[in-house]
């Protein structure tokens, strides 16, 4: 844990007179995502406890249809891969490729949101019908909010990457990396959510 800086290097910095410190924005974002993950952890814990100790009336138990959420899972997993491709492209200084991968990722995000909407409208229960229904909408809704924000971020990054020599270059592309980390996080949460909510 301790950082050891040799004395020579230390004195070199002092003689240099200029102080610099690294860019810790990714570290800050990672810490924020840990916090965000704890919000989901709280929701998951609540859902599992409700499931374990609050029995539902037999008429309130639904068998969820699996095909649509499975499609959603595939959409998000593929979008993670395409976002990764976009990151690779910008590092190789292929700006045009990067933009193509970004727009594809945004499209997959929108497809997920559309498919989620479709599922909401086709479900036989509403938000306040019973405890299970409320938890279902709270969990998927809170995750959907994250996907919405992520898609907006991707579109912003895509817009930024269109101007050459702007905020997104092969050397300097923090917005893209940050959005990518966030997007992988949201996808990971979905996988856990899918297992807990649909498969368990």
């Amino acid at each position, binding site marked *: 844990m301790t950082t050891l800086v040799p004395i020579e290097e230390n004195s070199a910095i002092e003689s240099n007179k200029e102080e610099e410190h690294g860019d810790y924005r990714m570290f800050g974002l990672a810490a924020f995502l840990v*916090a965000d*993950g704890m919000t989901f952890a709280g929701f998951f814990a609540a859902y599992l406890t409700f499931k374990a100790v609050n029995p539902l009336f037999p008429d309130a138990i639904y068998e969820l249809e699996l095909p649509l959420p499975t499609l959603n899972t595939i959409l998000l997993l593929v979008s993670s891969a395409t976002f990764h491709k976009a990151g690779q492209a910008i590092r190789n200084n292929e700006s045009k490729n990067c933009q193509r991968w970004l727009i594809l990722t945004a499209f997959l995000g929108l497809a997920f949101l559309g498919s989620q909407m479709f599922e909401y409208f086709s479900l036989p229960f509403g938000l306040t019908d019973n405890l299970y229904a409320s938890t279902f909408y709270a969990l998927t809704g809170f995750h959907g909010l994250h996907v919405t924000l992520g898609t907006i971020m991707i579109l912003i990054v895509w817009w930024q990457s269109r101007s050459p020599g702007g905020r997104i270059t092969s050397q300097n592309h923090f917005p893209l990396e940050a959005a990518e980390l966030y997007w992988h996080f949201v996808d990971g949460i979905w996988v856990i959510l899918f297992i807990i909510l649909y498969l368990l």
Partner: protein
Amino acid sequence: MTIANQPSDFERGDRLQPTGWMRYLSFSLDHKVIGIQYLICGFIFYLIGGTLASAIRIELTSPISDFMARDVYNQVLTLHGTIMIFLWIVPVVNGAFGNYLIPFYVGARDMAFPRLNAVAFWLIPPAGLMLISSYFITGAAESGWTAYPPLSINTPAAGQIIWILSVLLLGGSSIFGGINFIATILKLRRPGLKLMQLPMYCWAMLGTSILVVLSTPVLAGTLILLSFDIVAHTGFFNPVLGGNVVVYQHLFWFYSHPAVYIMVLPAFGLVSEILPVHSRKPLFGYTTMVYSIMAIVILGFVVWAHHMFTSGTPPWMRLFFTIATSFIAVPTGIKFFNWVATLWGGRISLNAAVLFSCGFIVNFVLGGITGVALAQVPFDVHVHDTYFVVAHFHYIVYGGSVFVIFSSIYHWYPKFTGRMLNEQLGRIHFFLTFIGFNLCFAPQHWLGLNGMPRRVAEYDPQFALINQISSVGALLMALSTIPFIWNTIQSAFNGQIAGDNPWEALTPEWLTSSPPPVENWRGQAPLVTAPYGYGARKKEEEDAESTDTNNQGN
């Protein structure tokens, strides 16, 4: 990418930001300004929360509700609890002193994310104003600072929703602050400075920030679910709609028990800074202090259900949480003995800062003992929701954290302003506070043991006399703030000039001018590897003397 931190940058930045007192009202990015903003803002809320506390004690001087209507009493106690916890202690022990001191301690020019830092502060005033104004507009929340459902669902909704929004804003502020502290302490250390050479307050803030980042989001999620119950009539925590109130309690205490450590761990750190300076001795047991902080952080996450022994908690869970809670007494005890050992045999100057720190040690031990008692299920079942809990709680957060806040203000005021506080007024402040505090809260143990329930405006007439004694104590506490406020205001203009290092301290914040320049140090930050090296100079002299005598002998 690197960020150049040359002094010239700061000078350029200086011109863009207001100077003088106006900078305390601006969106300043300077960690020192933000620290003072936290401190003054927190103190204003302390005065408001204290006024509400006085109103509660006035009401309780008589067994009937004559001073306030019952629902007003409920609103007042809810506001008192929420303001004192979320707007005074948490922002001040973390935000104020953390922001001011941590960059000095790690040898940095500012926090890792200065803009995020300013955002974290500026979330607090609107949240506080929203909370207080709810009393005048819609009626404030009435369900206490815990907002337990179904009470919080069945009381008027508008006040409760404003309460939730305000706590969410404050939680966001805390999380941003916590991320910033973790990044600053782990990443921004001056080259050559090792983790185990950091002043103890850094360790306390690292532990606290881990608690903040991991537990506050759970409270946020829970309050969002509660707001759905209130606004959209879902049934998460509403038994009528098939919900489960105990789940709320689990989630709430998963945050709010660590919150106790969020309030008290930084206080531990501050005391560990103050005592060595004024007793001219190294901090006793540095390594054990570090490990006990981290042990408290880990144990702090697995003790929450000791607040819920009467909530139908199954026996195995009660047993587990009793044992885990009792274990916390071990690291806490280690810290207590280390402070006493730091004082032991030292050249102690009994000024106001040390008096408040010693007051903290005494009060905290009393609060700690009742804490261990409360962790035992048979005892807890007897005194749950009585004044015994109120007494215990105030011994920890007032006798603990608030005493340390005052101690820290006496210690660091010369650093903030360049002027000393009046020592005589400081002592008057201490004795009024210490006597008033113990007179107010010690009798409440007796009230609780005899069955007086908390959070009610009316009580059995047999408790009247003890309640009146308690109210006299509260009056003394209210009076004690007058010399303090007078002292801080007049010393800012007329106080004796302090010089750069009036306490001859060794920690890095004293190795610059008082008040410090915008860039913290003119030139390179000093490398302080022994922040508690008091007596080291004496030892060197002794060594020199002994070599002299050896030479003479030869």
